[in-house]
């Protein structure tokens, strides 16, 4: 495991009006690390991951990506986001575009690749996620699992430095969870830095390098999967695990 720090979160706070969701969160993520975030619903884990690419603006603290504070005013937020991939619970594919167009739109629009380069990259990625034959289909013709694999491919098309997954399997039928998780595992094995909010404890146990338990507006407990799942310390985590395992 390399120890070069990719993301550093300092004293992060977030409120919606008077409702504080996150309070004083601190975290360092190293390159190539896979972080799983677990916790009861409403604990702020989704909000937290959405602050990492500034879909949610923070109300206090700082987030550094490659040493640059991305919460500062005047930061080129579009540039930041192009380096941070995001996969949503509800896929959010673009229904009016073909699968291939879904993958190539952003790189071409942002001038990162020519259309033919992007097309080539898209074909490689579709092959990697096993959906080459769907290149010219529209999202509505895909199953949920296929949609999420395409959403992952769409993020990968931007060559991101880190991938954020916000409950990527929560909207899927149970029989489709596996195909998405195994794709994510492959990504992790290839050395992608990943932050995954998940309810799949098996995935957290097996794939994550580190597990964060979010509760009461912040990271309540963190450690290796073994530490978290075999020897939970705080009562809240024990309660939580007893419910989900």
């Amino acid at each position, binding site marked *: 495991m390399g120890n070069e720090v990719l993301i550093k979160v300092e004293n992060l706070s977030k409120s919606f009006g008077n409702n504080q969701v996150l309070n004083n969160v601190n975290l360092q993520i190293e390159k190539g690390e896979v972080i799983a975030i677990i916790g009861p619903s409403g604990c702020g884990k989704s909000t937290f991951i959405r602050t990492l690419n500034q879909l949610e603006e923070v109300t206090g603290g700082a987030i550094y990506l490659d040493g640059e504070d991305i919460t500062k005013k005047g930061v080129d937020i579009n*540039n930041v986001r192009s380096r941070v991939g*995001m996969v949503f619970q509800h896929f*959010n*594919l*673009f*229904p*009016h575009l073909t699968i291939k167009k879904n993958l190539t*739109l952003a790189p071409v629009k942002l001038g990162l690749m020519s259309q033919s380069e992007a097309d080539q990259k898209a074909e490689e990625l579709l092959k990697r996620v096993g959906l080459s034959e769907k290149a010219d289909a529209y999202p*509505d013709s895909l199953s949920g699992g296929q949609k999420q694999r395409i959403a992952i491919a769409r993020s990968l098309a*931007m060559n991101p430095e880190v991938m954020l997954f916000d409950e990527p399997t929560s909207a899927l039928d149970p029989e489709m969870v596996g195909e998405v998780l195994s794709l994510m595992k492959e990504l992790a094995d290839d050395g992608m830095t990943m932050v995954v909010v998940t309810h799949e404890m098996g995935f957290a146990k097996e794939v994550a390098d580190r597990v964060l338990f979010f509760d009461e507006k912040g990271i309540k407990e963190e450690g290796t999967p073994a530490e978290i799942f075999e020897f939970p310390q705080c009562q809240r985590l024990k309660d939580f695990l007893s419910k989900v395992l």
Partner: protein
Amino acid sequence: MKKKLSLLLLALTTALMVGCGSKDTGKLVQTMDDLEGARIGVQLGTIGDIYASDYEGDEAGTVIERYNKIADAVQALKQGKIDAVIVDEQPAIASTENEATLTILDEPFALEEYAICIAKDNDELLTKVNEALAELKEDGTVDQIINNYIGDSTKGTCPYVSPEDVSYDNGTLVVATNVAFPPYEYYDKGEPVGIDMELITAIGDKLGMKVKVEDIEFDSIINAVDSHKADVGIAGMTMTEERLKSINFSDSYVTSKQVIIAADPKATGEGIGFIDNLKRNFIDDDRWTFLTKGLVNTLIIALCAVLAGMVIGFMVAIVRVTYDKTGGLSVLNAICKLYLTIIRGTPMMIQLLIIYYVVFKSVNVPKLLVAIIAFSINSGAYVAEIMRGGIMSIDNGQMEAGRSLGLTYKQTMISIILPQAIKNVLPSLGNEFISLIKETSICGYIGLMDLTRGGDIIRSITYEAFLPLIAVAIIYLFIVQLLTLGVGQLEKNLRKNEQ
């Protein structure tokens, strides 16, 4: 579809039968005294209207019905909806020519003098017109013109011809009139003709000015002259004290009688047959061309307005959505909100009149353009709300997905949100276009010949209310059906795209 159409035709035919049948209730008017307690029809804003108003609300319960056209009043009389019509003598003769069941009472209702109206602040023109009029009376031209239209032996024998050496160095004389008042002004082969038309041409020749006729509603003529939309108004108009408050009048050029049209108690038999009636309304003098010309204008206005309205609506919707979603553009948003409030809160007709008479008061803009502008602005407001609804209906996740890939707000809007929003609102946009087409039927109020007014003109010539109206209705229906089909097909194609 075919079944629907034939059902429709059946309904129309039934309506036609009912409309043609006449009812025979109410009061029989045979002398002036009978007017008390009768239902009297007049043309809105005419002298007949003013005189008849004296009877209104009297103890005998006299009712005054005001119509936009003499033809409508005559039609109502024929159907027994009213008991008498008070109108100028010559139009009365012309409009009862083909009506065996109607008669003009021998006893005249009132005598009156016609004059030309000119804006209060235009004394220079008033003087010139009076001088020209005096000269024309002197050399017999006025009598010649009147004889060309009135009098069985002289009718059509002595039309006014412009002198060959006349030059129009002094520009254009814009003349407001209501071409629905034979024999003073009416359409013949698509051209406005009549006593007033020849007289004003003769005056124009004297003044060295080319006459340009604007055909508008009678009750808008004084407005048009007062606001300098037209230089003079001539429409068998009598000088009254009320009118003198807002406008000046030239010397009188003809004396006319107000007469009473009533049902003829001795009448036997019906009017002319259905086929002859069809022929008279559409075939004679190529009258159907009023409908085709009107239709072209209606389509031009609707098409241009829907396109321009789309552009306006689009921009307004973007501003409103951007404000709603990000809080930016607050000043523009306030302006857009004001625009939407005003346009959606006032009737289209009022907007059209305001744009024509107030906004473009002193600028000479073609009426077609005025109509296009007015309808674009109106349509823009409705399209804006449709588009805004369309954009708001797109799941927030689409914006987030676009932004998370590094696209800017604008890029996401253009490449991701708008294409989906437009597809969603296409049926609503189609409906907007359909209602816009029908709304253009108010263009007659600024004297623009759209489809509805084309039918009106035929009605003013033939004094037949029913056939032209039905023809116009069928044409509108046909266009709307065609569009409905088109929109449906478009929707189907778009949906197919995504599967």
